[in-house]
């Protein structure tokens, strides 16, 4: 139907310059670069990142450059208050708290690193396989997960620790039974969602192999979920170790994990609060920084979720 009031002559074709048509305002940036750009604007996350880097550096180098070792006793400086010699004071055997705290941080960070790797390898693989194979395999794999989710994780870890001698290796092994479950569920849900989307179908129609689709279409699109979940697994692992050591079934003296140190500090809290306060501050700082950084990464990688 023609509209009498508006005539065709009223319309003029806009001239578009050929070079402007193909003009690219900025080079295409990948997901990681994109996320980094957005993360940089989040002041809290950047501060958290720098504090974490500082903590990691201290954990690696502070014990090396100190004249004390974490297990050397010195009965001349029992319960020394923080001073120039002992920056964080000393404990009931005169051991230097500065060195012990950074040794403890080493253990915490090591457990965190292993938990993260485990999450990435077992969790992602389990979730991806479950989602991609589907059918009966998926059903069986999901039932296994449902049983694992049925008991609080910490209870499984505690039962496991009873059966094996306490040590960093045992704690890591115990965490590996349950640590990856959340990741597996998230990755499975994400891949199931992606699998039915048009771009995957387009890729199939264009003749991509199954392997190519998994590597190029599915996994890159789940990176956001994976990275964010790892950032929340890490503080959980650190907390679990400290918690177990605190209630006395994790690591034990003379090893210095943050949980052992807090337990030792708690015993003498009434008279020497500094023995508790310093390791407690360090663990809180680590947990806060990971959680702030995790939030920042979530906002950066999934801008729609931003609140």
């Amino acid at each position: 139907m023609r509209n009498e009031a508006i005539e065709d002559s009223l319309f003029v074709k806009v001239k578009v310059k050929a070079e402007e048509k193909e003009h690219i305002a900025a080079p295409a940036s990948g997901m990681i670069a994109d996320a980094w750009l957005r993360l940089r604007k989040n002041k809290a996350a950047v501060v958290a990142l720098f504090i974490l880097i500082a903590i990691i550096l201290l954990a690696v180098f502070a014990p090396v450059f100190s004249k004390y070792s974490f297990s050397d006793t010195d009965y001349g400086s029992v319960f020394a208050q923080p001073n120039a010699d002992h920056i964080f004071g000393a404990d009931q055997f005169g051991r230097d708290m500065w060195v012990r705290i950074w040794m403890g941080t080493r253990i915490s960070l090591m457990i965190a690193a292993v938990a993260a790797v485990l999450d990435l390898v077992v969790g992602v693989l389990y979730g991806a396989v479950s989602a991609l194979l589907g059918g009966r395999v998926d059903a069986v794999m999901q039932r296994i997960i449902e049983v694992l989710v049925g008991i609080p994780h910490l209870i499984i870890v505690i039962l496991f620790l009873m059966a094996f001698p306490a040590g960093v290796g045992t704690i890591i092994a115990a965490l590996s039974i349950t640590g990856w479950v959340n990741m597996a569920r998230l990755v499975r849900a994400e891949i199931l969602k992606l699998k039915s989307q048009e771009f995957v179908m387009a890729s199939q129609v264009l003749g991509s192999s199954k392997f190519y689709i998994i590597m190029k279409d599915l996994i890159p699109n789940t990176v956001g979920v994976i990275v964010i979940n790892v950032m929340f697994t890490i503080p959980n692992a650190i907390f679990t170790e400290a918690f177990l050591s605190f209630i006395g079934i994790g690591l034990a003296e003379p090893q210095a994990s943050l949980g052992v140190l807090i337990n030792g500090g708690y015993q003498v809290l009434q008279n020497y609060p500094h023995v508790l306060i310093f390791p407690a501050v360090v663990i809180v700082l680590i947990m806060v920084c990971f959680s702030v950084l995790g939030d920042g990464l979530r906002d950066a990688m999934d801008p729609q979720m931003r609140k």
Partner: protein
Amino acid sequence: MVKYILKRLLFIFVTLWIIVTCTFFMMKQLPGTPFDAERFSIMTPAQQESMLEMYGLNDPVPVQYVKYIGNILHGDLGTSFSYVNQDVGSVIAGRLKPSALIGLQAVLIGLAIGLVLGILAAWKHNSGIDYLTMILAVLGVSVPNFVAAALLQYYIGLKWGILPIGFWTSWNCSVLPSIALSFSATAMVARFMRTEMLDVLDQDYIVTARAKGISQMQVLMRHAVKNSILPVVTILGPIVVNLMTGSLAVENIYSIPGIGSLFVDCIKANDYPVIMGITIFYAAFYMLVVLLVDLVYSMIDPRIRLTKGKED
């Protein structure tokens, strides 16, 4: 609906059975008997036999397993190793009340403070109270509960002497542990409520409500809060897990005769029957809470259907 509940209950039973089986055979591998080796060796064979009988240790392991499962079905969890002559059921039952009271109070504190903070934070988005809530939410999940409990005990209990530092003599004793346990619950609720409510405040019907000209208070209470408070039910499961595990440390710190401290004591004493009993109890309780949450949520939110409806 009934079919769905039965299906879920059946799954809970199967899960419990798997848990019982795994822990049973694991415990059998561990060293330790309830007997003092020296005193046990000077008993007559008949006495030894009757002692073993009492703890169910006189049969080969597979027979013990079958008997154990049979006993559990009758509600008999065996005899404690460390609490002499007491059966596990009564040991656990005797410790139930303090844990239940502290847990319940912690949930109530968490809900009350968490909801108020979450609502205010979302309503005054990007204001001082919003930042304060977010800081508290991060701290609440980052400060380990045993550190919070130790510091509360030291400052409020010991230095300022306002509340008892521990033990279980009056209701006052339950205040500090409840507060210590409630931090993470408060943080989880506040954060969840804030996110939910920001979502709701973005909806068109809030704009409509404002356009109608009703007061801000009415928009908040009748439209925003009412629509965002329901999903909070769903985080009850994670909160319960948090309280259970938290109670292991907090009850120890405050010397409270609850299930958490019993569990830790029995682990240190290698009291396997009680450890198994508490594991079963924790798992069953947690799974029932999750089931209950699902049921309640489907009842209060008609959009959620547990069973497949006719339309799909």
